[in-house]
């Protein structure tokens, strides 16, 4: 439909059909019979500072003196809305206080204790006239509106200076004076008493937006207000052409922005967009009054008209209530008759929320305080199963299918609920109103909406976590590759810079290893085939251990007074392992001595280096190697004492070869090996101490401690201080033991 025709229809006052809606009992006569009154000054005022920290900072601090209308916060963001002191007094505290919200969660608030004098701020001045502001620019007017902290007073409290500065051209300005909710009469009384001021405010908005048409929409249950506004309109600055007052048939919720636009223009605001994109701006009539005060008088938004109504109040009517007045004060002032079992509803009966704590303050969006007694509104009734009657769909103003939304919300199928346009629900309550099964539909939708929001949040977090993880694995991978590349590079460099002699040395070493391996393989008749099989080795090792255990068990009292290495320091794990290795060695020795045919399967065991007198094969396993090293050292000691020649083990078994010379044990290169050596020496020392008291002769194989030998035979590791200390301690202990035994002997 071309816009011009629409304007023609608007000029004629055509109304479009509004979809759905209900006719709840209006009950407006309770509060629209008296003029707007005022309340006395409260004991304290609580001004919520929601935006502090996000888009504004405090302009005052605790203890400051403030005047009525003085600025309390300063903006840091273009959308910030400053708050002002509602009366003069001292800022007692800035702390968390319960908020005026369905959740009742605490919010940072500025608590002002009034001094009773209600002194106006010096910024507020006598009202200017329309011609005085004729020269002002739009930016100046918008700045005044922002500085006054004006928000939409219809309930949504959207910053007005943003709404009146839209990006698109505005062709239609609608002043929303519908007030469709039952009980509320605030806008009605304001229009009856302040129609000229309202029209001035409308004129200011008209000047800002320059729309082609202006409609003041009033519901037809307010005939006095309509008449007053007509008179005021004639007196006002507004042009006569393109401005009209339209009376709209009473229907809830025709006052909703989207519904009102549909009624007045037949157009629908597309889901997810704002009316400005259609070239329409809707403003509440009370906001117009506040704009006039702000622009012409620099009077900030510090008070508003609040309807106090319901059967539980002795003085129902409308009141000018300063923003920040605790609701408890309003209740006592208006003669509240109820108790804790009653509800205190902020807003109307259809969309208002029940307040838990009445110490919360009146805020910019609080247009009504509904105080019903127990019989006045609907009694709480049990939820029955849905009979799919479809009444909810008949009354839904957003043309949704509340029934399907309910089924899916109840089954927690939130994605299906979203498919049925859950997001478009305006929570007006019409569906719940008509439901014959008393199903709290709006409550289900609210839960569903918050569940959808939480799910979206979690999904976003999971997505971020996944990204971080992927980046991390990528980073680690890159580092690893870089490291490898560097190593490779270094190896290359080393190779290239290595002299030929070094290379020869390396080659010779490799050859020696090979030869030794071959020799060991040919000499040891008992050695098994060369191809080492891990599994076979493991099996062999297990068998060896079992045999050692058995031997240890079978020879608890050694024939030659064998010591029992297992007694040595059984508390220490490592020492126990070493002791076990020693026992194994002993057993093996016994077995070998017993029969010429040594057990063949033990020769491949990595743990067993004592298979041939010729040398020590390189053990494969680290721990086993250490044990092997200890055993080898013991063996070597024995051999040394026997005086027989033991072929020097090859130096080429680099890292794990402690037995180089018959004279002693060479320094272990490894730190751990040093520790083991120290442990062994300690064990030996202790052993010496024990043995000295009982037996005379030791079996040299097993004797881990020769009192005269022990301290010297363990060569200290060259590079480790700790090991050296340990060895020294062991030496000392051995000496001490030796001295002790010698003294005992004497």
């Amino acid at each position: 439909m071309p816009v011009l025709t629409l304007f023609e229809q608007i000029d004629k006052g055509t109304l479009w059909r509004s979809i759905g809606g209900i006719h709840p009992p209006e009950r407006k006569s309770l509060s629209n019979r008296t003029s707007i009154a005022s309340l006395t000054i409260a004991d304290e005022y609580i001004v919520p500072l929601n935006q502090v920290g996000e888009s504004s900072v405090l302009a005052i601090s605790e203890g400051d003196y403030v005047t009525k209308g003085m600025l309390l916060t300063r903006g840091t963001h273009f959308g910030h809305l400053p708050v002002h002191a509602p009366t003069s007094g001292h800022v007692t505290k800035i702390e968390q206080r319960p908020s005026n919200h369905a959740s009742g969660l605490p919010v940072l608030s500025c608590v002002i204790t009034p001094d009773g004098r209600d002194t106006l701020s010096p910024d507020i001045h006598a009202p200017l006239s329309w011609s005085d502001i004729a020269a002002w620019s739009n930016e100046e007017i918008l700045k005044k509106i922002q500085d006054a902290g004006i928000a939409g007073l219809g309930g949504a409290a959207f910053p007005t200076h943003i709404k009146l500065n839209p990006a698109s051209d505005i062709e239609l300005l609608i002043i929303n004076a519908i007030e469709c909710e039952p009980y509320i009469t605030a806008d009605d009384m304001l229009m009856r008493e302040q129609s000229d001021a309202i029209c001035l405010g409308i004129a200011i908005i008209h000047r800002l937006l320059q729309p082609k048409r202006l409609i003041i929409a009033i519901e037809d249950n307010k005939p006095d207000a309509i008449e007053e506004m007509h008179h005021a309109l004639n007196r006002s600055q507004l042009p006569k052409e393109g401005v009209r007052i339209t009376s709209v048939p009473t229907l809830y919720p025709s006052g909703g922005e989207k519904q009102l636009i549909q009624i007045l223009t037949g157009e629908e605001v597309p889901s997810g967009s704002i009316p400005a994109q259609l070239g329409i701006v809707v403003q509440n009539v009370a906001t117009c009054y506040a704009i006039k005060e702000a622009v012409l008088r620099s009077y900030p938004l510090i008070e508003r008209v609040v309807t106090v109504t319901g059967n539980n109040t002795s003085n129902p009517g409308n009141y000018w209530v300063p923003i920040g007045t605790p609701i408890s004060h309003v209740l006592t002032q208006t003669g509240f008759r109820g108790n804790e079992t009653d509800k205190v509803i902020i807003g109307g009966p259809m969309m208002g929320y029940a307040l838990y704590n009445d110490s919360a303050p009146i805020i910019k969006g609080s247009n009504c305080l509904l105080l019903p007694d127990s019989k006045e509104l609907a009694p709480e009734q049990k939820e029955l199963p849905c009979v799919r009657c479809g009444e909810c769909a008949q009354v839904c103003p957003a043309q949704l299918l509340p029934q399907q939304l309910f089924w899916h919300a109840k089954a927690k199928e939130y994605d299906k609920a979203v498919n049925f346009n859950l997001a478009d629900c305006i929570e007006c309550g019409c569906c719940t109103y008509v439901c014959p099964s008393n199903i709290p539909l709006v409550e289900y939708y609210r839960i569903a909406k918050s569940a959808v929001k939480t799910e979206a949040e979690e999904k976003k977090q999971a997505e971020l976590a996944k990204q971080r993880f992927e980046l991390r694995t990528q980073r680690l991978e890159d580092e690893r590759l870089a490291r490898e590349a560097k190593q490779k590079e270094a190896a290359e460099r080393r190779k290239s810079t290595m002299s030929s002699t070094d290379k020869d040395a390396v080659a010779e070493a490799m050859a020696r290893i090979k030869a030794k391996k071959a020799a060991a393989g040919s000499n040891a008749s008992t050695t098994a085939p060369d191809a080492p099989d891990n599994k076979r080795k493991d099996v062999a090792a297990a068998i060896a251990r079992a045999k050692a255990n058995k031997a240890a068990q079978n020879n608890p009292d050694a024939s030659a007074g064998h010591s029992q290495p297992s007694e040595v320091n059984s508390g220490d794990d490592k020492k126990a392992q070493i002791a076990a290795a020693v026992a194994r060695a002993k057993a093996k020795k016994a077995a070998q001595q017993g029969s010429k045919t040594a057990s063949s399967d033990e020769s491949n065991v990595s743990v067993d280096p004592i298979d041939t007198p010729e040398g020590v094969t390189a053990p494969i396993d680290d721990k086993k190697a250490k044990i092997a090293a200890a055993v080898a050292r013991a063996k070597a000691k024995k051999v040394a004492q026997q005086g027989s020649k033991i072929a020097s083990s090859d130096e080429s078994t680099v890292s794990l070869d402690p037995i180089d010379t018959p004279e002693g044990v060479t320094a272990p290169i490894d730190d751990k090996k040093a520790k083991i050596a120290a442990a062994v020496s300690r064990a030996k020392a202790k052993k010496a101490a024990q043995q000295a008291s009982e037996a005379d002769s030791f079996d040299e194989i097993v004797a881990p401690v020769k009192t005269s030998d022990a301290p010297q035979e363990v060569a200290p590791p060259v590079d480790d201080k700790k090991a050296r200390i340990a060895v020294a301690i062991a030496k000392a202990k051995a000496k001490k033991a030796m001295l002790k035994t010698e003294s005992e002997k004497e």
Partner: protein
Amino acid sequence: MAFKIASSPHLSRSFQTSSLMQRVMLCALPGVAVQCFFFGWGTVIQALLAMSVALISEALVLKLRARNVTETLRDNSALLTGLLIGIAIPPLAPWWVTVIGTLFAIVIVKQLYGGLGHNIFNPAMAAYVMLLISFPVQMTSWVAPSVIASQPVDFIHSLQMIFTGASSSEISAYKLGFDGISMATPLDTIKTDLAMGLTTIESLSKAIFSNGFGVGWFWVNLAYLAGGLVMLKLKVIRWHITGGILAALFICSSIGYLLNPDTFTGPLLHLFSGATMLAAFFIATDPVTAATSVRGRLVFGALIGILVYIIRTFGGYPDAFAFAILLANLCAPFIDHYMKPRAYGHRSAT
């Protein structure tokens, strides 16, 4: 001070499901009265029997399901189902037919599927179909309308026949008209006659008809129509399903009649015979088993109307509402899926 909290809205129309069902039952009373006048007390006895059985069986099942018995019974849905079954069953059918049918409707079709709001099929109609298939003789033995019967059934005899069983000769005695010829229902008469090759005019000249409408059945349907209009006015039901049925039936029968008046019955006869008005206003409008959206309901009603015409004209049974309604119940989810209304702010239907 801390106050009571609750979710908005805090106002409610408080028109309960129980009063909904109650109003439906009350609006059916005129039709029941007329039916009782023409076909004897059997109708009332069957209705009362079915209602009692419905209440008892629902109470038992609710106990088994560990639900609150009084609360659920108070929603009057079991009573309404019982009433509709009682009206649909022939007045002299034995008591066990009614009992079996009601048990089937309440326990299996309604409660086994989850109780009120969860059943897929209309319980009364599913029970009727089950009985029709299982006990065809008993379910098709209607009496002759009292104004033209050779001997109308009185109350004691009705009681006796229902509860102590009646021989087929006794029943056929009550089927006799003035002329001693056994009478079937008007729709049954027309069907057999057309099958035999008679024209509609010839069939309509039989005693069971007067002025082109079935004797007795015409007034019964009128009474149900009146009750239905009261329900519409009270907004107990909405017009879409009923309108769909009646419009579709009217259009289909008009087309048939215009094509060949000799072999197809006209729209008025269709609209005021058999269970047309009863089903259109009271049975098919059962919200649980119907489609939900406005467009969906129109389609749902039209589907029933078309099916009724087809089955009545070409099918094997004289009256077809039970089958048509059950078939439409099957289609309801499908209809709902494709007939979603367009929400505000969405130009294309979502």
